[in-house]
């Protein structure tokens, strides 16, 4: 099953550990919060992703099945809200 990264933005407190451990898919914004590339993870990156997930001190980072609804690394959008975005 394909997976992608998701961050719980309420739990995340910008420790930045994740971006250090998994720069292939996580960078930090101007305020130190992670910006995720939430495309499906190829198999060879899953281990790296898991390491970042396990290291997050806030347990804010998750690997979720790709078929879970939602877009652009956000937590789940209310269904239908995608149409609000350009």
């Amino acid at each position, binding site marked *: 099953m394909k997976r992608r990264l998701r961050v719980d933005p*309420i739990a995340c407190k910008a420790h930045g550990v994740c971006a250090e451990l998994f720069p292939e898919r996580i960078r930090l*914004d101007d305020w130190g919060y992670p910006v995720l590339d939430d495309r499906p993870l190829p198999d060879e990156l899953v281990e790296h992703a898991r390491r970042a997930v396990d290291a997050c001190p806030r347990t804010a980072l998750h690997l979720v099945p790709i078929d879970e609804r939602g877009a652009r690394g956000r937590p789940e959008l209310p269904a239908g809200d995608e149409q609000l975005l*350009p």
Partner: protein
Amino acid sequence: MSAAVAGGAARLLPAVPSAEGYTAHLATAGPLPAFSGDELIAELGRAGLTGHGGAAFPAALKWQAVAERSRARGAVVVGDAMETEPASLKDRTLLALRPHLVFDGMLLAASAMRARRVVLCVASSSDALARTLVAALAERRRAAPHEPRIELVTSPSRYIAGEETALISRLNGRRALPRAVPPRPFATGVDGLPTLVNNVETFAHAALIARRGARWFRSVGSAAAPGTTLLSVCGGVAAPGVKEMAYDSTIGQVVAAAGGPAGDPVAVLVGGYFGRWAPAATAWSLTLEPGSLRRAGLALGAGVIAVLPRDACGVAETDRILAFMARESSGQCGPCSRGLPALAALFHDTALGRARPGVLETCARWSLEIRGRGACRHPDGATLMAASALEVFHDELRRHLRHGPCRESARPPLLPTPVLTGR
């Protein structure tokens, strides 16, 4: 506040803007028909009713999602009358004039979902509205004692408190803050039960569809966007207020229904503080249909149409709205609670002409970077509005940067940006 009616399309707003009591309501609307839940949901689906709280989500899908889950455990029905958008008046207007139509819609939903609780939520600052509703609910209980009781609950008047997960938190005895989904309200909401949250206008339309049917509902508007919508029209119009228009009306017709432009219109903020600016020349011929607006990068949101006349400054208006949206972040998510104030501060510097190299490019980059990264859509609305201002007021922004604030920006604000205290 005027509750004018236009285009011969008025369904929700009465011809005479006076509060309708229960007896008068039954006389105009007729008794509520008995429906099985499934029949009613199918009828809402055929009608093509979409939500009027901002996201235009199909009502039947949401009702179905809750109804399916409620079989085992029951459900909760919540009417969202928070209306925390400062430029919006339509929900309080509807509730002041036709409270029983809204109650009808909520009670129909309650019966379709076998709801255990039916709750109407209003902002704690709306004393007048709460008083009206207390009286209307008391009248309803006396006249129709067999109906389920509708509870009236107030929640702090903050912008994000009207967001559905914030309402649910409040009803669950926690602070009125949005939370991350899933679980979504239709699966787990108030008291852990499947919860239907609809805007009060959505419930009012549902109550009419139950009586008159999908075919009647679709007889105005267009095939893609049937029916009417309430709009709060403000800014540079001669008669601001709440108007009811069919979806195939153009924004030009909406402005005409609001007495026509006051001053030479240069831009329109479509959808409110959650919406987007468009040049008046572009906006004028667009219809309110989601497809028509979407092609122009717009969305109707909760139905605010604000007209910017030439003697007001779009940069100054946007500056104040962005500051408002930044203040109204609930402070839970970094990209929103840090990003929005940073974006607002940068925009403010621009408005004051405190030039910094690359300031507009940074605004544009942040407006993209922040978007989609909060637990709720608050930052998405604010950043889309900011991005549209960067485009539509491109020339004005550069003029501010070069020469400092324009003369127009010293004028009193066109659009309200109150400091909300939560009281």
